[in-house]
């Protein structure tokens, strides 16, 4: 049985009622894992409170932070400061230099592009090659597909069709996420898979982008953030006197 994940919920963190409603709605829609966009300066107490709310409805909470840096220098500064505090790092690429830097940096997990400014979606073949080498994934938010109407939605669908084809060709993982700001924009995983058909994504591939891919991304990062992690393939198994040479 598939375990579904929605890696992008965007409730207002200050509005506790809305956060609770969206978390319980996620559970009702069949998700087992969710990620909520958190402010970079959030305290551990608030995170623990969110984790409690999620565990009450059998959901696994993933901590996520979204950056929208103006320059690549600013991006590097954020990454140095915050990489080890959050399980998922998403970069909103608003310029080409930021997009290229984010795609080649292994500390970035998700690349997000503006939904309405199509000319600022820099996910082309070169970007995909960089992202593929750095194991970054392309994030496609589904909320704009739901709330946009007319020509903005037509342009977005057309662009997403090209981007998903490039991602598939180059081997960049794609993650579908809701990007919902309230519960009316939230949909179940199979509904998102049907919507992904609009940009010619096969429903089985779409279901993988909502289950296996996000789970493996989170598992990899949790491994890296665990205290015993040293480097890829190396981790501390045991410590103490028994391990020292005589």
């Amino acid at each position, binding site marked *: 049985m598939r375990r579904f994940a929605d890696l992008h919920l965007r409730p207002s963190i200050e509005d506790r009622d809305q956060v609770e409603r969206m978390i319980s709605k996620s559970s009702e829609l069949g998700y087992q894992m969710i990620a909520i966009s958190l402010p970079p300066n959030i305290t551990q107490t608030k995170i623990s409170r969110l984790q409690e709310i999620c565990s009450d409805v059998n959901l696994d909470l993933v901590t996520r932070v979204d950056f929208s840096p103006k320059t690549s220098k600013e991006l590097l500064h954020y990454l140095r400061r915050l990489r080890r505090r959050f399980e998922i790092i998403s970069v909103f690429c608003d310029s080409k230099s930021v997009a290229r830097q984010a795609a080649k940096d292994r500390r970035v997990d998700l690349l997000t592009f503006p939904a309405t400014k199509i000319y600022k979606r820099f996910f082309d073949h070169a970007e995909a090659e960089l992202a593929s080498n750095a194991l970054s994934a392309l994030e496609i938010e589904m909320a704009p*597909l*739901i709330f946009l109407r007319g020509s903005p939605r037509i342009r977005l669908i057309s662009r997403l069709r090209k981007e998903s084809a490039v991602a598939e060709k180059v081997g960049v993982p794609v993650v579908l996420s809701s990007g919902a700001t309230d519960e009316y924009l939230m949909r179940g995983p199979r509904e*998102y898979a*049907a*919507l992904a*058909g609009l940009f010619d994504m096969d429903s089985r591939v779409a279901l993988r982008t909502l289950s296996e891919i996000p789970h493996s991304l989170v598992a990899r990062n949790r491994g890296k953030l665990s205290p015993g992690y040293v480097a890829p393939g190396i981790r501390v198994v045991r410590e103490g006197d028994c391990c020292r040479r005589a």
Partner: protein
Amino acid sequence: MLPKGVRRRYLALKLVSDSSVSREDLMNAIWDAIIQLFGEYGASQTNLSLIRYNHEKDYAIVRCSHKALEMVKASIASITEINGKPAAVHIKRVSGTLKALFKKSQL
């Protein structure tokens, strides 16, 4: 046994809205969503009809052609308002027969 050309799918829908919604409002919203996404030509291929609507429990059952199932699912998922009020329609279950739909979705 029906020939393959007229195979159908039944969808159990759950309606989420703060205001009351009539069956006409619901069907208008679904038709509008289909026409916006796939146009009138696409809508003509769906053979969509409302089979049951329960106002108290906020659920509905619609029938469509099996070939147009993905179109109908995508359109229903794109509904954000009914009668100008915020709303969402969730697809709870899809089945080939009404009997199986009732059994699986426990309506």
